C-alpha cells in the first residue's frame, strides 16, 4: 500500500505519466466518438454511442482529478489548458472519425486493450487508482459488450467486413501504442503501482484478440513493439479536435465551470 506522500519524486512523476496517458486516452476517444452525435447509423445507436462517449469523458474526469490531487494542479486546466503536443494519448486516438466501420474498429481495439489495462490497474498498490480502476471496469464491461456486438455484425456482411478489415490494418500499429512502456515504468512496476509491465499486458491483449479476429475472418493482430513516438506524435486531425473541445474553455479563460 502506498499513499502519495510516501512516493519518491521519481515514482510520483512516473505515476503522473501513467495517469495522464490513461486519462488522455479516455478523454480523446470520448470526444472523437461524440462526433457521431446526430449522425450515427440509427437513432438508437446515436443515443448509445453518445452515452458511451459521455462515460469515457467521465472516466477521464476522475483520472484528471486523481492526477490533480497528486500534483496539486487543477483538473480542468489539465484537461483543457494544454497545447495539442502536450497530450499523451496513444496514436490510435490521432485519427478522425472517418466511417462507422472505422470507428467500430478503433473502439473495439481500444475497449479490449483498456479492459486488459484496467484489470491490471485494479490490482495497483496505489489505492486510489485501484479503486477508480475497479469502478471504471463496471462501466467498461458494458462498452465492450456493445462494441463486441457491432464487430460481429459488421464482420458478418462481406462489404462491411472488408471496411472493418481495412480499418483494423490501418489502425493496428497505432493501437499497439496503448501499451507503449512509460518513462519510469521500472519504478512503477517495482512499487506495484503498475502490477505488470506494459509489454506483458500487450502480449495478453494480442493473445485475446487473435482467436476473435480469426473467427471473424478479420486480419490477424501481429504483436510487435509499439513505435517509440506512439504517445507523443500528433496529427492535424487531433489538432482540429483539440480546437473543438477547448473552444468553450478558451472562450472565457477565467470562468469557473
Amino acid at each position, binding site marked *: 500500500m502506498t499513499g502519495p506522500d510516501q512516493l519518491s519524486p521519481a515514482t510520483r512523476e512516473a505515476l503522473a505519466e501513467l495517469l495522464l496517458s490513461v486519462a488522455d486516452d479516455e478523454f480523446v476517444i470520448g470526444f472523437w466518438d461524440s462526433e457521431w452525435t*446526430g*449522425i*450515427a*447509423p*440509427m*437513432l*438508437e*445507436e*446515436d*443515443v*448509445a454511442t453518445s*452515452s458511451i462517449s459521455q462515460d469515457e469523458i467521465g472516466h477521464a474526469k476522475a483520472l484528471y482529478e486523481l492526477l490533480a490531487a497528486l500534483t496539486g494542479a487543477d483538473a480542468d486546466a489539465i484537461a483543457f489548458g494544454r497545447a495539442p503536443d502536450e497530450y499523451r494519448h496513444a496514436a490510435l486516438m490521432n485519427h478522425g472519425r472517418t466511417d462507422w466501420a472505422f470507428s467500430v474498429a478503433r473502439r473495439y481495439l481500444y475497449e479490449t486493450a483498456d479492459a486488459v489495462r484496467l484489470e491490471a490497474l485494479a490490482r495497483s498498490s496505489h489505492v486510489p487508482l485501484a479503486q477508480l480502476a475497479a469502478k471504471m471496469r463496471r462501466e467498461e464491461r*458494458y462498452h465492450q*459488450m*456493445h462494441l463486441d*456486438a457491432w464487430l460481429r455484425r459488421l464482420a458478418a456482411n462481406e462489404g462491411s467486413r472488408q471496411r472493418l478489415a481495412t480499418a483494423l490494418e490501418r489502425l493496428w500499429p497505432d493501437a499497439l501504442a496503448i501499451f507503449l512502456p512509460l518513462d519510469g515504468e521500472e519504478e512503477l512496476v517495482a512499487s506495484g503501482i503498475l502490477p505488470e509491465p506494459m509489454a506483458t499486458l500487450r502480449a495478453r491483449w494480442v493473445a485475446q484478440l487473435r482467436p476473435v479476429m480469426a473467427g471473424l475472418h478479420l486480419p490477424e493482430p501481429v504483436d510487435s513493439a509499439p513505435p517509440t513516438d506512439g504517445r507523443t506524435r500528433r496529427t492535424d486531425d487531433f489538432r482540429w479536435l483539440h480546437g473543438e473541445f477547448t473552444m468553450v474553455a478558451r472562450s472565457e479563460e477565467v470562468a469557473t465551470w
Partner: protein
Amino acid sequence: MVASDAPTDRVWEVFRQEAEGDPMIHAGNVRAPDEELATHYAREFYGRRQESHRLWVVPRDAITELDDPDLLQPPFDRSFKRPSGYLIKHKLEAAKARAASPGPPNE
C-alpha cells in the same frame, strides 16, 4: 440521423421496474434488428441514468393485443360492475360505531 427502414428492424417494447418488487411499467420502445442490440438500446434509453432496477424487452409482435370495442366497451350500462356501484359508506360508518360502543345498554 439517417432513418433506418431496414426490413430486419423490429420494434421492441420496454418495461421497467424501479425497485425489486415494484410492478413492471411500460417505459416506451426501441427499434433494433435483434434481441442483443434491442437489449443494449433499452439499457441506454431506459436505464443509463440508474433509474431502473430491471428491464423487460419484448418484441412487439410477441404481444397479443385486444382492442375490440364490443369486448372492451360494451354498449349497456356497466356502472353496477364498478366498486363504486355499491354505496357502503353509511353501512360502514354504522358498523364502526357499533364496534366502538361498549355493548348493549344496561336496563
